[in-house]
């Protein structure tokens, strides 16, 4: 088997798991964790394509992954800040109960 296929399959699996987590968990933080997993799966794709692609010295995929990691860090910080802020108002992290647009 082409090694790239293996990595892509693992990435797809992780993506699906992350998506399942994001779709099914009640806790907002765990939804965020699911989203992080999906981002990571995408990063794995980028790196794998970079490694097995025709022009690794152009560094495109690698750069994408690095920027994506940086953006994910920002996303996590803001997302968790929001969760904490919402928790302060509603005393819950349950997404099913967070259905009001106003805090």
């Amino acid at each position, binding site marked *: *088997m*082409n090694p*790239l*296929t*293996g*990595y*892509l*399959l*693992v990435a*797809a*699996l*992780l993506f*699906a*798991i*992350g*998506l*399942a987590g994001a*779709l*099914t*968990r*009640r*806790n907002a*933080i*765990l939804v965020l*964790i*699911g989203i*992080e*997993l999906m981002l*990571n799966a995408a*990063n*794995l794709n980028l*790196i*794998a394509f970079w*490694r*097995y692609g025709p022009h*690794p*010295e152009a*560094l495109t995929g*690698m*750069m994408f*992954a*690095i*920027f994506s*990691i*940086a*953006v994910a*860090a*920002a*996303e*996590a*910080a*803001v997302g*968790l*800040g929001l*969760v*904490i802020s919402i*928790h302060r108002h509603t005393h819950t*992290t349950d*997404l*099913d109960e967070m259905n009001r647009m106003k805090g």
Partner: protein
Amino acid sequence: MSVVFYLIAGLSVAGALAAVLLKNTVHCALAVTVAFAGLALMFLELDAQFAGFAQILIYIGAVAILVVFAILLTRGSDTPTDTVFSKKPIVGLVTAAGIFAIFGWAILHSAQFLPHQTATPSVTVMDIGNALMGRYVLPLEIVALLLTAALIGAVIVAMHEKAGAK
């Protein structure tokens, strides 16, 4: 496909599954850390040394800690007594399974077209630095701006509101 790959892939998938399935939120956070570590190892396996270490530094050193902090600050560390899944979880599961099915199908059917470079790319940290300061300097600056904005935003969002400010 080496044994190492299967080991790492197994570790990552197991970590991810545990993160999604476990009841206790802190256990989930620790499990996702395992998944992150597995992915970092996979990056190393793919000769992306810098990205791998960045993954460890940022995901394990920062994101995981942040998640754990958020869990503790929101009193989510106790194991919930009732279900941890939302209403109609089956819809979500089916959707996720559908996505995986489509992806898997697409990957397996395009396997013979996929590129396959066996030569290890010789990319040093110096090259990455040059690329960041050269071709990718604008994205770098934008990411810097984004991170600053995120820092300020996160602080403001999570800041304790003054009494009577509501």
